[in-house]
Each structure stands twice: as structure tokens, then as C-alpha cells.
């Protein structure tokens, strides 16, 4: 939270308390503002929250532990497909969320360990390319495992996934209290918001613990980290599996929210998009992941709404379609950030301890 407050320009330093309340209020009323501009903006906001979870998880792997993972979206896929297998008509299984979501997280963590073991000894750039390969392999399997036994339903994907049902309360049905009707997109928003807040709390606690310090040590100097007794192998596996867990949970939520999964949602471009969010906000700090995810989910949509009419007015036709705009924005963001502002948009110094524990501290 403090990082986020410091990230707010001007006001963050002058009046942290006011800033804090502003952020909280903004988070609470955001869907109301979005609704003013239309339903599609509410969906975008919901997606932004999912991307935040992904960015937080990837930030843990890349930013804290220094392991450049280019196949991160595979864990999102594992979570989403777990939901699709266990809560949809595809196999006719309809398990409740409190079974499917943890299972998805567990499978993703397992996948993280499976990926982690062989790549433990690889250096940064080799690691990147092998994880990319891992992501592609997962996608190739999703695409082709409809034959000879139909498991994933191939490129068509799986339809009609169960929505989130919180102990009898179905989030995909609008809630009616008296005359007051709350649209289901609000319900998802607040539920996802809770998930994001939970993720932040957990990740912050990790960051300022012995585990977070061990990761940072390993990232800054692996040889020295070994020399002070850190079991680098275990710490890497832990980073991979925990990062994957967040991906898995986000994947499950994505499945329930979207109601549909297909390999297309888990392409390399998505891995790169999440990485860009982390890089854009600032590697290794939580606020950066949040800001990066929000900015890079919203910006392409804003551009879409501005650029398309402008193009039509100017050229009479659409030259840059939204998908192209998004890719252009992401790739430029990645290059320019590295060249001009490598510490990210929110270059807050991440703390790995809590000095307040010092009695009479310095």
C-alpha cells in the first residue's frame, strides 16, 4: 500500500493519508464510473483485475527472484482448463469453486515445479527461452489433445463453463435487492478485487520475510547467496511454484468469468503482455505490477475508442485495428521502458524487511 501511495505523483508524498483514502475510494467506485461509459468498460475493469493477479504472480518470479519466465501464461491456462474440465458440460462434471479453484492452483504449482526442476541451473537468457518453449508446448498440447481422445476439444476450446457460485450465490446473475438491481459485472468486480487484495497481502508478506530476502539475494548475486547459505535450488522452485499458483487461481477465475476457454487465450503474446505489465510498472515492486496491469489493460481500449474514429475520419477506413494497436503499444512499451526508464513507471524502492521491528530503531 505504501508503495502505491508513494507512486501517486505529487500528492503521494505530501499527504499519504489522503492519498490512501483516495485510492481506496477509487477502487470501490471504479465500476460505477466505468458503467457510466458502458458495459464493455466494466468488463475491461474486471479483466484488468485478472491481469493484476497475473502481473503480481509474474512479478514474484521475474521481479523478486530474477527468473525471466516467458511461458507464464501456461499456468493461467492450467488454471483455466482445470475449471473447464471440472466445472462444465464438457465432461459433465460440475464441482463447486472451493474444490476447483484450489485444485487449479495446485495443478499450476505442480506445473511450476515440473518446469522449475530441469531449468534450475540455466542462466537468465537460456531460462527465458526454455520457459518460452514450455509455454508453447503447453499450447500445442491444448490445441491438439482432441485426438485420439478428446480431452481439450482442440482449437475450438471448451464452452459453457460454470460461473462462480459462492455457496449458492451465483455471481453471474444480477442481484436484486428490493427495487435495486446490481449487475453481475459488479459482483465479479468486487470478488476479483478481494482476490487481488488478498494476493497483494500475501505477496507483501512474502517480500518482507526471510523468503523475500532470499529471493532478492539470489537475484542480485547468486554466488554470494549460496555463500551465505541460501539453498538456491529450493528458493527457485518455491518462486516458480508460488508464481504459478497465482497464475492458476487467476486462470480459474478467468474461466468462470469468460465462460469459455480456448488455446488462443494463452498464446505467447499473452505471456509477453503480462511481462510488459511487470516491466512497465517496474520490476520487483508490487505497486508497479498493479499500475502496469491497469495501464496496459486500459490503454489499448482507450486507444481503440479514440484511434478508430479518428482513423475513419482521417482516412475513411481503419488502418490499425485494435489488435495491432495493442501489439504496437506493448512492444513499444517494452523497448522504450528498457531504454528510457528501466526501473519502470513506479520506481519505488522495494523493502525486504520491516525496520519498525527495531526497538528504538535507527
Amino acid at each position, binding site marked *: 500500500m505504501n508503495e502505491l501511495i508513494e507512486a501517486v505523483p505529487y500528492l503521494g508524498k505530501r499527504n499519504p493519508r489522503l492519498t490512501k483514502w483516495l485510492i481506496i475510494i477509487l477502487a470501490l467506485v471504479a465500476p460505477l464510473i466505468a458503467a457510466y461509459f458502458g458495459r464493455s468498460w466494466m468488463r475491461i475493469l474486471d479483466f484488468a483485475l485478472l491481469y493484476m493477479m497475473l502481473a503480481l504472480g509474474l512479478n514474484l518470479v*521475474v521481479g523478486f527472484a*530474477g527468473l*525471466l519466465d*516467458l511461458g507464464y501464461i501456461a499456468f493461467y491456462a492450467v488454471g483455466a482448463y482445470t475449471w473447464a474440465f471440472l466445472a462444465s458440460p464438457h465432461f459433465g462434471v460440475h464441482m463447486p469453486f472451493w474444490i476447483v479453484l484450489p485444485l487449479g492452483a495446485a495443478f499450476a504449482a505442480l506445473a511450476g515445479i515440473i518446469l522449475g526442476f*530441469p*531449468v534450475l*541451473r*540455466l*542462466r*537468465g*537468457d*537460456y531460462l*527465458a*527461452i*526454455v520457459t*518460452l*518453449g*514450455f509455454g*508453447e*508446448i503447453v499450447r*500445442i498440447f491444448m*490445441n*491438439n489433445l482432441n*485426438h*485420439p481422445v478428446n480431452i481439450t476439444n482442440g482449437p475450438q476450446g471448451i464452452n459453457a463453463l460454470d460461473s462462480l457460485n459462492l455457496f449458492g450465490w451465483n455471481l453471474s446473475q444480477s442481484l436484486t435487492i428490493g427495487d435495486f438491481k446490481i449487475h453481475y459485472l459488479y459482483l465479479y468486480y468486487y470478488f476479483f478485487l478481494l482476490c487481488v487484495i488478498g494476493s497483494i497481502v500475501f505477496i507483501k508478506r512474502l517480500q518482507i520475510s526471510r523468503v523475500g530476502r532470499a529471493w532478492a539475494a539470489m537475484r542480485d548475486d*547468486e*554466488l554470494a547467496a549460496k555463500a551465505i547459505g541460501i539453498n538456491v535450488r529450493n528458493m527457485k522452485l518455491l518462486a516458480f511454484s508460488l508464481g504459478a499458483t497465482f497464475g492458476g487461481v487467476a486462470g480459474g477465475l478467468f474461466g468462470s468469468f469468460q465462460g469459455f476457454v480456448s488455446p488462443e487465450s494463452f498464446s505467447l*503474446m499473452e505471456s*509477453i503482455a503480462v*511481462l*510488459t505489465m511487470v*516491466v512497465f510498472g517496474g*520490476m520487483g515492486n508490487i505497486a508497479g505490477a498493479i499500475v502496469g496491469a491497469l495501464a496496459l489493460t486500459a490503454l489499448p481500449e482507450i486507444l481503440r475508442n479514440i484511434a478508430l474514429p479518428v482513423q475513419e475520419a482521417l482516412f475513411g477506413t481503419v*488502418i*490499425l485495428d485494435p489488435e*495491432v494497436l495493442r*501489439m*504496437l503499444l*506493448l*512492444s*513499444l*512499451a*517494452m*523497448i522504450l521502458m*528498457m*531504454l528510457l526508464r*528501466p526501473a519502470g513507471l513506479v520506481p519505488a524502492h522495494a523493502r525486504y524487511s520491516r525496520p519498525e521491528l527495531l526497538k528504538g530503531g535507527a
Partner: protein
Amino acid sequence: METLLQQIVNGLVVGSVYALVALGYTMVYGILGLINFAHGEVVMIGALTALQTLLILMGVAPDMAPLLKLAIAVLVAMPVCMILGFLMERLAYRRLRGAPRLAPLITAIGMSFLLQTLAMIIWGRNYHTFPQLISTAPMQPIPGVFVTPVQVAIVIVSALVMAGLILLVTKTRLGRAMRATAENHRVAALMGVDTNAIIALTFVIGAGLAAVAGVMFASNYGIAHYAMGFMPGLKAFTAAVLGGIGNLGGAMLGGIVLGLVEAVGAGYIETMTFGFLNSSYQDIFAFVILGIVLIFRPTGLLGERVSDRA
């Protein structure tokens, strides 16, 4: 038996193109320790530039000999790619020398996607037919095994280009400067080598090779599009690692071996897995090989020097 021979022929053809692309990866890696992710996209730009040139030529001079057209297309594509390679190095990678180790790599990934996007804007998303100017009429040197003239041309041209590169690197002053820079920048600079120029030149030469490779890919498959460079790029990188990264001979060997493994593997994967996996899993081979090589023999088949910059 015919199947096996046929797959070996196909593997050799694809493998020699991989080898050409792998050389670009290996030279840059040898000198900068950077995986130039965007190298595969240079292949794509080469192919599409050549295609554009061919389309113009066909409009302007429809009667020109097909081989001449192709030669002109290559001669246009090469400098375009070389300029691209030069710009990438000059505008992005050079500023990042000495930056934290993830920064150049992330920039290279961004560069790769930027080039794809630009290609998408210029040439659209569609697959373009690449004119097949060298005959694709299959010949049968051995009954049941088909070889097309274009395939023969690919193998010959890439062998010639590679031989030229080897001569350049081993026999000329320039080559010696390149090897010195790869060995140690600072010492090379002290000995009077303009290392910045040498590094830029490495990118330019690699990009030139990639342009040739791009035309070959497009001629072989008869197709060109904005994303055609990515997978071959990854595979060529795998080939470079397989042969021993930083080692020119290794890149060539790795390219051929990878091409063979892929082709033969794709031919037999269905039998090997009892019909469970089929040839749509072909792309997996490269990644699995990459993983295995990096984990068990990171120096590759021929490589000696793997700088462990811990």
C-alpha cells in the same frame, strides 16, 4: 525406407536454412552474450521485402528471366535487412551494454514483436503466395524419393554462403578483428580494433544471412506472412545452442541436425507414440532438444566456450 530417405531430404533442406539463421544468432551471442530475439523477424522482413520486389518486377518487367528476378529480389532484401540489423544495434542494443542482464533481453523480445506488428501494418495479416520462380516439379533421383529443384538450390546456395562466411571470418583482417572482439572487447579495443564498428558489422552480416534465409523459406513453402519468422527463429536459436553457441561450425552442424531430427521425428512420431501424438506436434521437437541440450550439455555438440558470467 523411402519415407526415411524422403524425410532426410526434407530435413537437410530445412536444416540448411536453419543453419543460415543460426549463424546470425551465434555471431551476436558470441560477441555480446545477447540472444537477439528479433533475428527471426529479420528473416521475415527479408522474405516480405523480396516478395514486394518480385511483385513490382512482375508489373514492370513481366518478361524478365525468373532467376534474374529472384536474384534482384534477394539483392534488394539483403541491404534492407542489413540496414534493419544496423538500426536495431545502433538504436537499442548499444545503449543497453552494461545494463542489468535482463534489460537487453527484454528489449530484444519487444523488438521482435514490434517488427511483427510493423510487418502486419505494412503487409497485413494474410498469408501471401510467394512466387515459385525455381521449378518445384519433383524429380525422383531414387524411386519414391522426391527432390525439387528449389530444394537443391537452397542447399547449394546456403552451402556457398556459409563457405563465404567461414572464409571471411578465418582468412581476413576483418574476421580476425571479429574473433578478437568476441574473445574480449576491452583487449580488442586496446589493440586498436574499433569494437563498436565490429559489433555493428556482426549484426549487419547476420541480418544479410537472414535475408537470404527468408527468401529460401518463402520459396520452399511458397508462402510469406508477418509471423513466419518467429518459429524458425526459435528453432535456429535452438540449432545454435545445439551446435555450441558462439561457434560458427557448430551453428551449421546444429542447423542440419535439428532439421533432420525434426523431419524424421515428424515422420515417425505417430508410430512412436502409438498414434497418440501426430505430426502437429512437430514443433515440440525443437523445444525438447533445446531443453535437453541446455540441461545436460550446455556447451553443445562442438562448443567449448560458454562464458559463465555469474
